[in-house]
């Protein structure tokens, strides 16, 4: 009888093995992918964290430095500066999109309404990471009047 034939146990172990291998393959693939993704993510996080720390330090140092500069004028071309021990490219009047440098900053003097003299500076600092594929960018402001 046909119904009896379906109940036969012959050949089941092979199907079972094939299923097991397939499941194992999928499981291993998924596991390896997740592990790989995690590794990339952790590495990227680590680089981003380092870049953020550098950008913060650059911004901090720029605030302190610019507070001592009542009449800072951005240079016309890119100039590498030592800002409180941090070496970075001053983009000057060229804008922040400058190739070839990993640490950049851009300063825009803000004239005062009272006398037209510079009263503060708007700062953009950017630090690239991951082979310049990504960057961390912070905005800051420094008073030109008084020490920090």
């Amino acid at each position, binding site marked *: 009888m046909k119904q009896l034939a379906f109940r036969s146990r012959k050949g089941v172990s092979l199907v*079972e093995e094939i299923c*097991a291998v397939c499941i194992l393959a999928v499981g291993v693939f998924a596991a390896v992918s997740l592990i790989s993704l*995690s590794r990339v993510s952790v590495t990227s*996080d680590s680089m981003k964290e380092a870049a953020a720390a550098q950008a913060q330090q650059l911004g901090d140092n720029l605030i302190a430095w610019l507070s001592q500069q009542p009449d800072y004028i951005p240079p016309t071309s890119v100039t590498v500066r030592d800002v409180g021990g941090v070496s970075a490219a001053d983009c000057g009047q060229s804008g922040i999109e400058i190739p070839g440098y990993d640490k950049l900053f851009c300063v825009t003097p803000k004239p005062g309404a009272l006398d037209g003299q510079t*009263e503060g500076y708007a700062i953009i600092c950017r630090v690239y990471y991951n082979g310049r594929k990504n960057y*961390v960018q912070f905005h800051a402001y420094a008073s030109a009047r008084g020490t*920090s």
Partner: protein
Amino acid sequence: MKTNKKGVSLAFVIVVVLALVIFSSLLFSSAARSLSMTGESTEGREAYLRAKSAIEYAKTEVYNLAKSNRLAAFSVGPDGDGFRQIADRAADGTACLAECKPGSDGKTWTVTAKVKYRNSAQFRLLSYSFAFQNNPSVNGFVASGGAIGGSQYISSDGEGSGQSQCYPIFVSEHVYSTSGFTAPEMYFTGGYQLKGGGSPTENLTSNLIYLCGKINCDSGATASLYLCGIKDKAASSVQQKRGYAGIVWFHGASVQPRNSSVLVSIPDGAYYFHEGANLFDKTTLANLFGNAQNADGKLQPVPQEDLQPSSGLTLGGKSLAGYAASVAYITDNTGGVKDGTSGDVNWMSQTKFQTSYGNNGGVFDARDADVSIYTDGGYKDEWQNCTSPLSYCARRIQLLKDYDLTFQVPKFTVTFQTGSFWFCEQSSPSYPWAAPPAGLPSDAPTAVQRSRVPTGVPIITAASDKSHLILKSKDGTDVTLIFPRGLDIQPYNSDTTLLLPAGTYTLKSGTDLLGLLSKETDWKTFLKPVSVGTHGGDAGPGGFTITPGKYSAP
């Protein structure tokens, strides 16, 4: 019983795969958590910079508000990537990022910044404290070469419309005038007399006029002394809100009105004046003696509350509250500044001369006061015979010398520890505010042969090769130098001299002024022009002082 092994491998694989999935999921979630933490950390750093930037912005606003005499508690709100000033309220981290308010002593100000990031529960908090102090709004050294000394009178004969100055003038000697004066502020502490027969008429054109002593005319009869205000660019709320032209301040003053032979004492105090108030007109003066019925209203006592900082009244962009301090500052308790005894070096601190010195050297510390050192002919002997180094400490120092004297640094080191150093001269027999002599360099200090120095330039020279004039600040910042009539710095035994045009300069702290030329070309990095070509210069910063503050996490 025989165990059936069928299906075991599938179960085993499922278990293994489950274990793998669990393990990798844990790893992934750990990576995801790391990602989240990195994002949080980055945003936290950004929030920190934003908080610090908000404080920096508040510092800028403190300066602006103080300058326009409107300093009061305020807050800082966001404005795109920047900031804007908003009404005072506590920082909430989003709509209000920082609050700036004074402490209970009125001098210490604190900016508290709070910036939210990530989610509503997380903030970056930062605090910054600094000291803010209101200074007299007029420099003590109002007269760039005031007539302190031997002149018996200041004549403005032949000056046509009268002397006009861009900085305040101060004359302690009796003024004997024919044509009036114009200056932002003027202080006549030795009396004021119109000269000339007939009906002499003069204008005193100023926002603040301080008069002490006799105010009269040598011919009497129908003289007129008009008070007029200056409408300068700076907002003057006295002129705008009160409608007056300026303020006249009487201290121990008496006036001889028209057609009168009697001097009438004027009650001490400050009075608003309208344009063209005539000090010799009885109807103008009537209000000062309680005779308001017959007064023309051109002079009105300034209410006491107007002289308080809270009144917000200004003249020439400066607080009226500062004027009281200024007047007290340059006059003693009789209303006049006395000359020093010949040969003494006199210290003027706050309201009194403090001390004089002989020839013992030492350290003279006037702390945060401004000091004027007057040197006449006698100082040469006193100071030159001094045998040990001298050190003078003050907030600002003015060295005022007689016109015909060379200022010679003795055979030792003289140190001025100060924020700014004025080198002025009493230009008798000329006017105290004479213009710089011709022949000075036009825009920058220049090393020249001594023989090529034009005549009439104020000179600092050295008594020996051991003479040093050190200028240094308390905190190592540059010292500001003001030379209203230029300066010739002559090193000892040198044919080359350093000639400076009139103006304002900065000098690196700790520099020997007499040793500049020995630095050869390097001196340009020590001495830098700030504003050259204006012989008057600014009357001084006045206004306020903001000391460097400290950051802290509240």
